[in-house]
């Protein structure tokens, strides 16, 4: 008897499991937060013109020796403006070096923007054609990478950094490396 009940209810149980899976995919997934293929890997090599110095270059070597943030941004990106205050706080109050890569932007616009809003960056590389961004697997600004002292990518934040992201995700990660070193 119980065998028969099981047999008849089996299709319904399977259907139920499927529906739960579908609901999860439909309502609770974040299709735009793609996992980075580069977590745990060395930062790809790049050599970008330094925006602050006329003949200098910003390369991956400058990201070694300390835990740091690598922020890919642009002046034409409104979400980048939203996270700007948070970046300023991170650099002044927490003393975490923030490196910037300006994505497909104009040099003079960037200088004017930084003058107006303040400059939290230690160094900014000018990625005018977006090649370095492709090497980093960036698909939209802003994106921020947490780089450990060995020059490995340990986390990628997609979208603006707000207080919540900083306190709950990035700061605990960075603290871990500060204690270790």
């Amino acid at each position, binding site marked *: 008897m119980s*065998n*028969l009940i099981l*047999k008849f209810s089996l299709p319904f149980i399977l259907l139920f499991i499927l529906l739960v899976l579908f609901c999860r995919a439909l309502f609770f997934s974040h*299709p*735009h937060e*793609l*996992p*980075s*293929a*580069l977590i745990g890997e060395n930062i*790809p090599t790049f050599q970008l013109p330094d925006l602050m110095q006329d003949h200098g270059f910003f390369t991956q070597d400058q990201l070694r020796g300390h835990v740091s943030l690598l922020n890919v941004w642009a002046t034409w990106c409104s979400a980048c403006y939203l996270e700007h205050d948070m970046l300023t706080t991170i650099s002044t109050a927490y003393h975490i070096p923030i490196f910037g890569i300006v994505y*497909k932007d104009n040099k003079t616009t960037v200088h004017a923007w930084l003058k107006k809003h303040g400059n939290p960056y230690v160094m900014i590389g000018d990625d005018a*054609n*977006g090649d370095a961004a*492709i*090497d*980093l*697997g960036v*698909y*939209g600004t802003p994106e921020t990478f947490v780089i450990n002292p060995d020059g490995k990518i340990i986390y990628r934040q997609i979208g603006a950094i707000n207080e919540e992201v900083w306190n709950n995700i990035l700061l605990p990660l960075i603290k871990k490396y500060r204690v270790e070193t």
Partner: protein
Amino acid sequence: MKFILIIFILIYSHCTHPLNLDTYRFPSSNDAERFKSLIKEIRCVVCQYQTIDESNAPLAVDLRTKVYQLIIAKKSNETIKNYLTQRYGDFILLQPRFNFATALLWCLPFLGILMIFFLPIILTKSSI
């Protein structure tokens, strides 16, 4: 009526052909074919359900140019796909590769077909 029809045709012909292949010049027709088929296999990660062939998002344009450069540099299709997956993950390929994470995805349809044939047999046999 004819006029409206012509307007519609003009609008839609514009919409459905965003990519002008003439902007990319290839040394051989083989390379051109390779380019055409490759960009149909690569997902635009910004507008996720389009290929970089269909999409005109700035990143899709950049990725097309990247694929073009790699083809000109005589890289094989496999090398180009590896280049992209190293940076953007398996998600960038519209046809997922067979690996540990996608094994269930690839096998489930076959299991399903097997079930269609065997489940009725199992169910009817044991109930008699």
